[in-house]
């Protein structure tokens, strides 16, 4: 890799005007009162919700306003080389691979700088970082409904690797029935241990229970109506497994890691496609490749940044998203390798017209 070329790419990706715009967007995000969003959207407005909305909001602003610009710049890099730079660049004693790798590193480093600034802004906006809970995974279970019944139960399987101190988070909701609300008791039994929580439900809300497994690898979840009231529904996939996290700041780290891999994959692919089609088309192709799986929640686990919106929702819930899997890292490396290979092959001809 050539450091000088990487620095040139970094500088070209973050020209002064764009840098001022980026800092202005991030400053607005950092100074905004996110407690208002917490009241409007969650009807709660406590400090924890405000912190969660602040972190989520800063990452969404970064994603909407700044990151697509990086893809556009990456896509336009090789067309620009062909238009103007080839005269000084192509006659130098460095191989195409070095030129492409250095340029990728420079643009990615520009993205990393924006992501770092975004992370700092998210923490400034959140204003505090007490201990938090990390989402390990969503548990498979059938839907439970308390209609006429007084109780309903189901099994929660695949709990063999649950660490000590884990919690179960349930997201039940109510439908108008014999009243606007329902008094419900939630109980989890495993081995010889059990834990219980009671709540009056009047909308979609979260209930958390300690999960003591006493050596068992499965548990039974039971919902019991305490008094007549509304219909209670626990939809499929609304039970999640949580483990303690040292601080809420890990939510920001989880988002930063996802966005960093996503930007790396985007930049490499846009750089590669830019060697074959026009820059804006290359950028649009790359963004579209991610939009479809995002819209339909159909991204495979190896897709870098494929779970970004789900992770943002988790952060908005005040949780720390699950750590990145090895398959996501492998997918990232495959995208980068493929993109850089496309770019290097495309540079076999620096100019296509006299």
């Amino acid at each position, binding site marked *: 890799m*050539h450091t*000088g*070329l990487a620095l*040139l790419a970094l*500088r*070209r990706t973050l*020209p002064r005007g764009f840098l001022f715009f980026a800092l202005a967007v991030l400053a607005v995000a950092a100074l905004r009162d996110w407690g208002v969003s917490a009241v409007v959207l969650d009807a709660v407005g406590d400090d924890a919700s405000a912190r969660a909305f602040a972190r989520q909001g800063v990452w969404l602003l970064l994603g909407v306003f700044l990151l697509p610009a990086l893809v556009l710049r990456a896509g336009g890099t090789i067309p620009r080389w062909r238009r*103007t*730079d*080839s*005269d*000084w*660049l*192509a*006659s*130098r*004693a*460095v*191989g195409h691979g070095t030129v492409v790798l250095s340029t990728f590193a420079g643009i990615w480093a520009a993205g990393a700088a924006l992501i770092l600034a975004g992370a700092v802004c998210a923490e400034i906006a959140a204003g505090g970082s007490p201990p938090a809970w990390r989402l390990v995974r969503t548990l498979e279970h059938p839907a439970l409904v308390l209609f006429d019944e007084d109780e309903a139960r189901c099994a929660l399987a695949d709990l063999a690797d649950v660490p000590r101190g884990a919690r179960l988070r349930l997201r039940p909701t109510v439908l108008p029935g014999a009243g606007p609300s329902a008094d419900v008791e939630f109980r989890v039994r495993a081995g010889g241990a059990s834990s219980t929580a009671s709540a009056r439900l009047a909308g979609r809300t979260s209930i958390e229970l300690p999960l003591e497994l006493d050596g068992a690898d499965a548990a039974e979840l039971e919902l019991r109506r305490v008094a007549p009231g509304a219909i209670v529904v626990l939809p499929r996939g609304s039970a999640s497994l949580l483990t303690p996290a040292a601080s809420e700041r890990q939510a920001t780290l989880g988002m930063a890691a996802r966005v960093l891999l996503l930007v790396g994959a985007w930049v490499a692919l846009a750089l590669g496609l830019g060697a074959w089609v026009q820059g804006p088309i290359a950028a649009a192709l790359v963004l579209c490749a991610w939009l479809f799986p995002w819209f339909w929640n159909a991204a495979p686990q190896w897709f870098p940044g494929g779970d970004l919106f789900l992770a943002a929702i988790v952060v908005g819930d005040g949780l720390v998203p699950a750590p990145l899997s090895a398959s996501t890292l492998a997918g990232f490396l495959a995208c980068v390798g493929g993109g850089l290979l496309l770019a290097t092959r495309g540079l*076999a*001809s*620096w*100019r*296509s*017209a*006299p």
Partner: protein
Amino acid sequence: MRFPMDPETIAVAGLAHYRDRMANSASEPAFRLVGLRKHFPGPLGLGRHEVLHGIDLSLERGRMLGLVGPNGSGKSTLLRILAGIERASAGELRVLGGSPERADVRRRLGFLPEVSPFPEELSARSALDLLGSLQGLSRADRRERVPAMLARVGLADVGRRTLGRFSKGMLRRFGLAQAFLHEPELILLDEPTAGLDAVGVGVLQELRGEALARGAAVVVSSHIFSDVFDPADELCVLIEGRVAAAGEPERLVADGSRVRLELENAGPEAVERIERAAAEAGAKVVSRGPGAGALLELYRRLGDAS
């Protein structure tokens, strides 16, 4: 090695510097082209646009080739192929003993493009440092050579200014600096005098002379005959992508009926006598004007006076 050096030192130290590097390839010409062709795809990829039609040409080390021809004759494309920017479509091509697609061959090349597309975001000093590092110059060499070369081409005072704020003439001087910085063995200059002022032309002549003295080969393309006629050891006339004529300049124009005569210390009376003598010999003087170095001499005189 101290840089810049006076011409005498360059003649000795430069040759010593090159002796080892060129020992194994002394018999190889600087470049040799046999039947070189180049075509580009036509609009929408249909058909093809032929730019060079079977060029046969070679140049020995230590010599200068002038490449002349009208606009669109293929001079720039030929230089870009020699510089490794373009790939030839067909034919044999050997530059400094190898293919210009090899990085180790390109390291020994210096190229001044027709336009000056250098990274406009960088200061002249940073850009020259970057270009030197891309040609394999060590950090220590760059630290020594970059400021010296900027001073040499008259850009020392504006070394911190970004290239985007340079005038066309300053960019041409910067282009010369980057082409000669790493003491290349083959120097390709595409229209080097375009946009250069008289002082810049003087710098170009000095740098070119030093390069030839240390054994490097120089190719200069121009559509202005007088730019290359005097200094070139060989001339090649390209017309519509074909070598229309090639050889020593004097031989090429021996049969021609138009010549340029440049006089020194020539007052009006001397010029009139020469015109009369020409008329007596059956020739006619069709134009009269200042010589190539007249403007530079005027600058120097005015500078001394002030």
